[in-house]
């Protein structure tokens, strides 16, 4: 599986963090604009799904897929939104990316941003240690950058 990029938004729509690994195409927008568009899409998508759902929902959106990528979504009760784009791996052995996003929240975001009193929670994350831990974690994943042959 290939990991393309990761966005972290707070509940006000501020993009707290963005990082890309194997992204091959840019959207052609300035980064700020891209963040706004991504947040806007998620916001509308959530509202779309709530209305469309035939039964009561708990988590709501899990992921969406096009013919080129799959967007995985994880939202905490505090409204933090983690978005990771990967390639489309439909194999049964494909790792559960939502669980992975939870892990990033639990072991990296909470530990190195929330518990660092000097990191503002509503501003983009500038912490070097957060950046390094996250990068190490992603690159250390067994699935990192292994193209699935399909």
């Amino acid at each position, binding site marked *: 599986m290939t990991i393309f990029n990761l966005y972290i938004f707070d*509940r006000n729509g501020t993009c707290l963090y963005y990082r890309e690994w194997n992204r091959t195409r840019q959207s052609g927008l300035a980064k700020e604009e891209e963040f706004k568009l991504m947040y806007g899409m998620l*916001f509308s998508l959530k509202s779309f799904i709530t209305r469309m759902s035939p039964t009561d929902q*708990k988590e709501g959106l899990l992921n969406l897929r096009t013919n080129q990528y799959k967007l995985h979504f994880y939202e905490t009760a*505090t*409204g933090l939104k983690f978005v990771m784009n990967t390639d489309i791996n439909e194999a049964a052995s494909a790792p559960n990316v939502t669980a992975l996003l939870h892990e990033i929240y639990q072991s990296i975001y*909470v530990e190195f941003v929330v*518990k660092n*009193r000097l990191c503002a*929670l509503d501003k983009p994350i500038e912490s070097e240690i957060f950046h390094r831990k996250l990068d190490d974690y992603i690159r250390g994943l067994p699935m990192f950058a292994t193209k699935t042959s399909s």
Partner: protein
Amino acid sequence: MSRQSNRGADPRKVSGELFTLTYGSLVAQLVKDYENDEEVNKQLEKMGYNIGCRLIEDFLARSSVGRCYDFKETADVISKVGFKMYLGITPVVTNWSATGDEFSLLLENNPLTEFVELPEGHSNLNYSCLLCGVLKGAMEMIQMEVAVWFVQDQLKGDNVTEIRVKFVRRLEDAVPAGED
């Protein structure tokens, strides 16, 4: 619950005495710095609020508690999971209002006040006001505005310490800029 026990064995665990003493000197310093008790209460609550905003993330990350859809459920989680996790006590949830939007937490032992005697002339000081702020901050992060205040305090001669929590309203997610 396994997390809980792991935590007990954590070598980084801070002693309860050190914590209560630290908190105590903080309050004592504030009492020195500010003219009146109301101002000290306000400062304590503000600090608590900032702690709550962060603590909630740690709480959600560690406990497997999901979103609450009912205030009764919320009260239970605060007492049985939240207080248990961070203060090692489980307050009794009681005195529900008729509309179910207000309840009390009864603390038999408040770890913050273990060695404390309030000095003369500070009858308005809410020594543990930090707790109110923590609850308020944490709840606000999960889209619930609440009011929290002390009703009874063992430090003031009451039999039990009672914290009252009132549901005010639900907060909405922010709408993206330039969209309706």
